[in-house]
């Protein structure tokens, strides 16, 4: 229980939490004080002066801004006196005299704090007869955000969000007096991964996003609470629709997860849902390529072909972009109907499923707020899990010590107390030195000894041995007061693993080796093949060699995303039969014999599980495109054609079945999520212990020795099919470049901007970067120009004659 103080507001005594700002304390007891610059998640600036109240002092009542004033015991406050009312009317009049009042064509009109507060607290009429201030309107401040300075009330929210929250100090005030305006710095656009938050924060229509301008009026919008599927943080979002289409995604303040913030990818990727390139009808390969077919014909074909193989000859790859219910249905379908344990939601790009899904002790995201030390060993959070990056930034702002280890510079380096840099491929060596506090690593090691520690552990890039993360997790685990979060990044991968979409996991965090649970599951399902199945890499190898014959691809693009694109290509070409559930024809699904149009995020409902194990609701906000269907409904039909009743036609039935048979999900019913968790979701298991608890140990991983080792990190804006189909952000995709330490560059020899070839096939310009350790090269994965490059641990790099 936090300390309380007693304050008196308008003659009524209240006990409120100590240490709060008066405006927050007043609101907590139902006294709403108007405001523009105040925002719960930003440091107070006291600029707008809208929140003035009278506070009793030694010299009588004094007007004070309630957003900067901390409550103190015995404080006597008047929020309704004549003086206060006059000040409020005065401030609103001042804000309005130069305001363009173009509300009828303003995107904010109808949801505008300036309009609303003018209605409630403003003067009735205008006394201003002078000429208004004029600015060119609107001006772009970035590729996605426009600024109308005439509407701006100079509340400083956007500047603070960019500076303090995002760490991108790219907006500023310029000029003074009546000419003050928000601006970017010359030749430096507001290119921030978090720029869209400013649009949502802006209390007027000064900041608008290019994709929503003039699209809808707020009172016509439909609202659906859901979570973002851009990464495994699962930020809470309000998916907003107009005339059956998604038009805007806003962040919801889920303080356990995203605190209202979104990355621009979370915010702007939704337009891909309505892409004209969506697959909207079943496609069956004919003599001249794909031909449209009816669902019944296409499913009959799939059922008869899949029914014609021995279970082990078939495998399924994917399911990470689906809901838990869809993933569960896929696992049940493959195991109990097809009779195969060959299933994998990861593409050889992730971690040991036992580590990711069942690591102990597992941290929650908000454990970061309580950590003395945060240790990151893994991908660049800014590029891969941007909202988690914000949470780490916040923890560091509030005093946590940050230790970052990575093979090249990351977004967090600037605020890290200790940066441990290792040459790609030699992590094991450095980890050992670092763990034993060798020379040069004493400071970092010391920080780790100061608990509580939260370790964020993952695979820095596809080129890194996944055992490296396990070794790092082992080090964290060996610390006395430590918890772990693993860093898989793809959408609902944690839900997929929890539903058993892994060769060594059964639904509910159960090992395939756990006979007791396997028996129980067999009772429920009727049939269950025992033992461990094949991973994606093994399946691709077996398909290529002919040892396996058919493949079910579920929203997965192994030709793009697995470490060896060439192998994936050969495997899919060699397969006798491939059925793809997909929303797009991708580099992988193009090899399918049948493509079944998949309903996607925004079109399906169910639940999903994020990287901390939090289960939240996912809700459909629009109807599926064309004839697209959810995976569980389609598989239910196909199973029927194969003579089995999966009982998966209705999502709620599946949710209940999961709660019944998946031990870690015991008790998670739809009602539970909606009514008993404030909508913020719940961590599973709710009660009791999960059957499998993976305990990482310190293992040794071989060190790669070769001329140039490869660091192959993911970029937020890549050439992935969703990014490509979201016009707002498609243009932001990263270009291929080879980052080299100047010393290595001089040996090739190449200069900044010269062209190099990698593995004799991939050509790209050189960028010199002294955060890259000598002896390694950094190339962004899955961007135009690196598509198809194998994530091997070392690469051959040559200067290209006649380069720039």
């Amino acid at each position, binding site marked *: 229980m936090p300390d309380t103080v007693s304050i008196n507001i308008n003659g009524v005594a209240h006990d409120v939490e100590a240490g709060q700002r008066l405006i927050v304390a007043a609101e907590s007891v139902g006294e709403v004080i108007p405001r523009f610059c105040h925002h719960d998640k930003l440091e*107070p*600036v*006291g*600029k*707008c*002066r*809208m929140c*003035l109240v009278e506070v009793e002092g030694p010299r009588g009542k*004094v*007007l004070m801004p309630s957003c*900067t004033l901390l409550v103190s015991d015995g404080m006597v406050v008047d929020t309704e006196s004549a*003086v206060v009312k*006059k*000040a409020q*009317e*005065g*401030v609103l*009049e*001042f*804000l309005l*005299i*130069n305001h363009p009042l173009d509300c009828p064509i303003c995107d904010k009109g109808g949801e505008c704090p300036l309009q609303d507060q003018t209605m409630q607290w403003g003067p009735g009429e205008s*006394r*201003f007869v*002078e*000429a208004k201030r004029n600015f060119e309107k609107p001006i772009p401040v970035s590729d996605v955000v426009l600024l109308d300075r005439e509407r701006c*009330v*100079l509340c*400083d929210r956007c500047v603070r969000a960019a500076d303090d929250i995002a760490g991108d100090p790219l907006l*500023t*005030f310029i*000029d*003074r*007096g*009546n*000419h*003050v305006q928000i601006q970017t710095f010359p030749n430096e656009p507001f290119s921030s991964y978090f720029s869209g938050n400013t649009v949502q924060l802006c209390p007027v229509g000064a900041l608008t996003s290019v994709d929503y301008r003039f699209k809808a009026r707020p009172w016509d919008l439909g609202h659906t609470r859901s979570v973002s599927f851009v990464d495994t943080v699962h930020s809470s979002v309000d998916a907003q629709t107009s005339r059956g289409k998604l038009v805007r995604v806003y962040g919801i303040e889920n303080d356990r997860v995203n605190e209202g913030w979104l990355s621009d990818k979370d915010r702007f990727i939704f337009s891909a849902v309505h892409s004209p390139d969506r697959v909207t009808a079943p496609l069956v390969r004919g003599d001249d390529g794909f031909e449209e077919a009816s669902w019944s014909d296409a499913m009959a074909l799939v059922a008869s072909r899949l029914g014609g193989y021995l279970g082990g000859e078939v495998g399924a790859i994917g399911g990470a972009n689906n809901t838990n219910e869809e993933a569960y249905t896929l696992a049940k379908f493959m195991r109990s109907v097809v009779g195969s344990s060959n299933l994998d939601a990861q593409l050889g790009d992730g971690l040991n499923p036992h580590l990711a899904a069942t690591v102990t002790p597992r941290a929650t995201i908000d454990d970061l707020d309580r950590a003395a030390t945060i240790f990151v060993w893994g991908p660049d959070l800014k590029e891969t899990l941007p909202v988690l990056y914000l949470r780490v930034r916040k923890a560091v702002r509030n005093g946590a010590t940050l230790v970052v280890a990575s093979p090249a510079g990351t977004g967090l380096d600037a605020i890290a107390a200790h940066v441990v840099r290792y040459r790609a491929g030699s992590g094991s060596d450095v980890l050992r030195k670092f763990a034993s506090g060798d020379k040069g690593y004493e400071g970092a090691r010391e920080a780790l000894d100061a608990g509580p520690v939260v370790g964020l552990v993952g695979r820095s890039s596809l080129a890194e041995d996944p055992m490296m993360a396990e070794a790092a997790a082992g080090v964290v685990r060996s610390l006395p007061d430590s918890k772990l979060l693993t860093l898989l990044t793809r959408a609902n991968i944690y839900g997929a693993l929890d539903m058993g979409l892994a060769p060594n996991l059964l639904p509910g965090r159960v090992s395939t080796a756990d006979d007791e649970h396997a028996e129980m599951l067999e009772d429920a399902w009727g049939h269950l093949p025992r033992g461990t199945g094949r991973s994606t890499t093994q399946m691709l190898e077996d398909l290529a060699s002919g040892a396996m014959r058919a493949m079910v691809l579920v929203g997965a693009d192994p030709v793009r995303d697995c470490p060896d694109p060439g192998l994936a290509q050969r495997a899919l070409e060699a397969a006798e039969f491939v059925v793809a559930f997909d929303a797009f024809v991708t580099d992988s699904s193009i090899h399918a014999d049948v493509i079944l149009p998949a309903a996607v995020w925004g079109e399906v409902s169910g639940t999903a599980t994020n990287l901390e194990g939090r289960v939240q609701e996912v809700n459909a906000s629009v109807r599926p495109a064309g004839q697209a269907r959810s995976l569980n409904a389609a598989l239910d039909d196909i199973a029927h054609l194969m003579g089995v009743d999966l009982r998966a036609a209705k999502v709620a039935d599946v949710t209940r079945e999961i709660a019944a048979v998946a031990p870690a999900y015991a008790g998670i019913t739809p009602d539970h999520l909606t009514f008993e968790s404030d909508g913020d979701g719940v961590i599973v298991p709710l009660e009791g212990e999960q059957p499998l608890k993976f305990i990482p140990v310190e293992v040794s991983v071989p060190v790669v020795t070769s001329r140039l080792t490869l660091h192959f990190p993911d970029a937020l804006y890549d050439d992935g099919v969703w990014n490509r189909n979201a016009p707002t952000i498609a243009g932001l995709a990263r270009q291929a470049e080879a980052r080299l330490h100047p010393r290595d560059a001089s040996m090739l020899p190449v200069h900044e901007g010269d062209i190099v070839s990698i593995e004799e096939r991939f050509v790209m310009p050189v960028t010199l970067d002294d955060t890259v350790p000598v002896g390694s090269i950094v190339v962004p994965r899955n961007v135009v120009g690196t598509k198809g490059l194998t994530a091997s641990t070392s690469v051959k790099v040559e200067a290209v004659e006649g380069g720039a």
Partner: protein
Amino acid sequence: MTDRILTVRMEAHPSDSHTIDRYVKTGGYKALRKALKKMKPEAVAAEVNASNIRGRGGAGFPMGVKWGFLGAAEPRYLVVNCDESEPGTFNDRQLVERDPHQLLEGIAISSYALGISRAFIYVRGEYARGARRLQRAIDEAKEAGYLGEDILSSGFSLDVTIHLGGGAYICGEETALLNSLEGRRGEPRLKPPFPAIAGLYAKPTIVNNVESISNVPWITLNGGLAYADIGPDRSAGTKMLSISGHINKPGNHEIVMGMTWRELIYDIGGGIRDGNELKAWIPGGASSPWFVPDKHLDTRVELDEVGANGSMIGAGAVVVMDETTNVVAAAHSIVRFFAHESCGQCTPCREGTSWMEDILARIMDGRGRPEDIDLLMDVSDNISPGLSWPPAMTTICPLGPSATAPVASIVRYFRDEIEAMMPNKEAANA
């Protein structure tokens, strides 16, 4: 009894009072030697406290009391405010141009008293000559061992840095000044925390005006009580007044407070130009409410008495206006200054000052409306509720309320003159 402290040397030696030779020959750096050799830091601070000197930068806050608030964290800083940008003020300019060593000696003694080894002088950007002379004086003083490492072999070291402002009046406000010094936008900060606890780079910082610090050598040499004996009780010491406007002897005058305004204007200032009638005067710079002859001529030039009469001595800028003055034009000129100099962060100041400027311009243009006078007063009231003294504020710093002073003054004393400028005066009266 001493009647001048700060200007003695410059008057006696107008050609070279700024050089170290002249300074040392006329007793300079004796006070520093005394402090370092014979006094503990606390003893020096105690003398300043005993002197009862009140800050000369405008707010009149007792200097010893402010020093007592200085936080213990290290490092601590001394920042000398030489931004002097209020219309009508030019006394700091004379002090840095004509007697820079007096200021430097004050800085060295104050820093010693406060346990500070890093001092800054924030000099108004237009004061190029003053800054040059200060820099030369710093170099000379270092050379002679009065600044720098191990001053006079006492173990005490001090580094003094000059920073030239960029031409913004608001950077004279102490927290805006600190922001500017840190390379940020010159905007006043929220208080608390006060600079003495968290100032420059969030470290304990004393900000004092040039004139305040220039008195420290004399106080050190002669004792705080001797200083407190000069002038009336709560206005101890001498004060430099910059007298300008329609006066026969404009310029800086160092006076002992306690005389009447009549004595100041007619004796010290030599009376009104061309034998004209005195119409009004601004007692303490553009931000102070005006005084008029029939009410204020025989009141006293004393900090508290001026305050009790609804105005302030402020930074000591007395602007005299004779009968030829168009008071609306005068008020407009001042309001325009504040509107231009507002940092723009608070809504009432940013919007209200330029609105008032527009209204006054319209009245001067012959496009005034009868309701404009009430409107002006109400806009003022929304910036400084009640238009009381000392001013209440709806803003972060006092700049916004300052802009209401000329408006309230002309409405209070010259309403008929404003009304006479309204085109439809007759129509309204009929």
